[in-house]
């Protein structure tokens, strides 16, 4: 099984072809021009991850608060996590790094605030 992806590590943007086994295990990559590309290709084709950032309404305030996942989460969970966040409401004050939602969808990753609100 082959998969074509664009490297994101630098502006060259190598087009890489990754060969995967029937079970989806990484076998080889071609088209990369550096080791960072190979590493990215393997990660991206086996367990792609993304940081998620969003905003959450603050009770009684006009301005929402911005939040992020404390570390990257599996890409396939992006919509589920956004859905989970859509029902979250918090109250001021909030400080940067404060946990807004613990262990979102059992990923082991917290949702944390990225700005202060007095």
């Amino acid at each position, binding site marked *: 099984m082959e998969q074509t992806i664009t*490297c994101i590590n630098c502006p*060259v943007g190598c087009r890489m072809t990754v060969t995967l086994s029937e079970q989806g295990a990484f076998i080889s990559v071609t088209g990369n021009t550096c080791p960072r590309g190979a590493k990215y290709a393997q990660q991206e084709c086996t367990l792609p991850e993304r940081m998620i950032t*969003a905003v959450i309404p603050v009770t009684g305030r006009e301005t929402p608060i*911005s939040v*992020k996942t404390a570390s990257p989460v599996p890409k396939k969970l992006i919509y589920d996590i*956004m859905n989970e966040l859509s029902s979250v409401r918090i109250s001021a004050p909030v400080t940067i790094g404060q946990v807004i939602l613990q262990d979102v969808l059992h990923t082991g990753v917290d949702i944390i605030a990225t700005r202060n609100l007095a």
Partner: protein
Amino acid sequence: MNERNVDVLIIGAGPAGLAAAISARESGIESLLVLEREKESGGILRQCIHNGFGLHRFKEELTGPEYAQRDIDKAAELEIDIECSTTVLTVSSDHTVTCVSASKGLQIIHAKAIVLAMGCRERPRGALCTPGTRCAGIYSAGTAQRFVNLEGFMPGKRVVILGSGDIGLIMARRMTLQGAKVLACVEIMPYSSGLNRNIVQCLHDYDIPLYLSHTVIDIKGKERLEGVTVAKVDEKRNPIPGTEIEFDCDTLLLSCGLIPENELSLSAGVELSPATSGAVVNESFETSVPGIFACGNVLHVHDLVDHVSNESFKAGAAAAAYVRNEQLAAPMITVKDGNGVRGTVPQLIRSDTDKPVDLMFRPSAVFRNSAAVVECGEKELIRKKAMIFTPGEMALVTIKPEMLKELPADSITVRIE
């Protein structure tokens, strides 16, 4: 009327103004004031809630608000006076600044040195000459970003994005995650000016098609936008008949470039460069008006905030040196754009500078396996090879002070070979 004197006055408390203020204070300036139009400092970073900022400066990936907060905290620690909700009306060449705010009314401030750090604006619809009706539902990408991220409103449900600048790409993802359907991202050039990373993570991840060499040729709708017509363009960017695609959408976002916001610079008589639309500056970021400095996106549009901060630290220190009367006097070397290079900053370098000078420029096209060359007449000063130069990424070469001694001519040229 409130009238006072300060040593260094900084206009704008975004990343550029904050870095300039921190650096001026750390260079020993006690009398320092920052004026900010918005009600909070942080500038455009406040609405850039995505991550990816600070990789060069902090060696970690921060969101915009987190990056801004580091400088805001530092400024607070240094007890820097920032007056928010204050709009500067004019800056004159004798360093007199008039500004207004609801709390203090009209103020006149006389500064020994001024740092211009007003940032940039998005190219508006009027400047794009798009055809069609003037209906509601057409926003610049940054305006939509402000609505969604700072004010908590969604500007629409079915979206087409014209232009593939980074803000447009970021908003394609943001609108999608917030429940909108992004139908297409349309780019008139044969390449995107956005970062690869954003094309992959904002478009590919969400199966949003990118139409290169295409543009919007019609905008329909009476009260609210009802649809746009997109067509392929030829090499001269003229639409090709028969290639039209209709999109049924209620929102069109424009991400078609940024322009330094230099109204105040012009009121001070600062000379602007046609290539950057920002001030012409020397290696200390001093403009053609002595004692007035410029840094950040008001000087030239950057891709990375890390570079803005770096440049602005230097500008703040230079403003402090000006106040202390530590000025260089040697003749200026002119920096010219050569083949494949546009908008090199700084445009002037004093030959007795004792610090390395970063020459920042934008490649005019995509060049693969080539080199950036700095030369003075026949004499080659620098040759820096790279696998790729693209217009989407500012390039940088550093000149060491010793390279500027005994040059055969009074100008140097930067080109891509």
